[in-house]
């Protein structure tokens, strides 16, 4: 895989961080959907089917961000997704809001546990990337 640099199809130096956070959220969302013995499934199943629907929505959002990184940063310059690039900060804030929503639902049904630290860490990463994207846009 070619590592992108400035002027070769990417305009952001944080492409790996964005990919890392998006894939991490994608895995977190897929765990309760694919494994019913997991702790995440047991935490979300107490809220009924809505918890799983929210998990599906989070997976879809993470897929959009992964597609944004692949198309806008890793593929050649003639391929681009303008809308995701334009609203990248909003996408990451929605990702953080989705994670916080799942955290709220899971805490409502049970107590705080060490599993929730992972949610909090992903929220911090998503908010940080949204701010970095906005700062980069202000600088340019």
């Amino acid at each position, binding site marked *: 895989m070619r590592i992108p640099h400035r002027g070769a199809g990417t305009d952001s130096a944080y492409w790996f961080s964005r990919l890392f956070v998006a894939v991490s959220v994608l895995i977190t969302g897929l765990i309760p959907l694919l494994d019913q013995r997991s702790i995440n499934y047991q935490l979300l199943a107490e809220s009924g089917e809505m918890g799983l629907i929210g998990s599906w929505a989070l997976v879809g959002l993470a897929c959009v961000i992964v597609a944004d990184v692949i198309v806008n940063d890793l593929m050649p310059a003639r391929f681009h997704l303008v809308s995701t690039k334009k609203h990248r900060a*909003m996408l990451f804030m929605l990702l953080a809001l989705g994670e916080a929503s799942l955290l*709220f*639902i899971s805490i409502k049904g049970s107590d705080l546990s060490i599993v929730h630290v992972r949610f909090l860490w992903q929220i911090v990463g998503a908010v940080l990337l949204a701010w970095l994207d906005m700062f980069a846009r202000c600088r340019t």
Partner: protein
Amino acid sequence: MIGRSYLIRLQHAVLLFMWAPTLGFAAVALERGGEVAAISWALAGVAMLLSTLSGITALLWRVERELREAPDKPLLRPWLFASSHMACSWLAGSLAFSLSEAQNLNEWWELAAVIAASFAGATFVQAAAERILSKLLPGTMDKSMGYRSPNDYQYPPMRPRGERPMPQRQQVERMAPPGEVVDTQPSPLLPNPDDMEP
């Protein structure tokens, strides 16, 4: 004349204290519901986290809109901009969370109420602050401060070159009044141009 700092403090006070009555109403509503709802601190903390994220989303949305409308415009009073957003987001979110807990709402309705109230509170106070500040202070966060982006200026359309010449400026000769003798001889103080060496 009232100084700017005084007005800014006044607006701070208004923004801070305008939520005090609503918090009082929330406390009354909680007490009227019988016993005060037993709210776990972890749940309240996550509700505040949701409120913070919703407020940051509203803030970034506003900054993004500012950048889209006028990329070269500096953001005035950023501390007031951010503090009004976040304070009102927290207060609206805590109010929504308290009322939802008092009413024993479903967790999804409670979640939606906290997020929507935080976002709407931040956006509403931002709009109100813009409207008030544009009247009180000369420099505000909207275009009423006199700032215009380069795209806002209306220049006259340029005439195509060579089609029709622009009217040249006519030379106005100063006419001597009648009776005055005009000295046509060069002044002796000035050097004669014929004597100057090339």
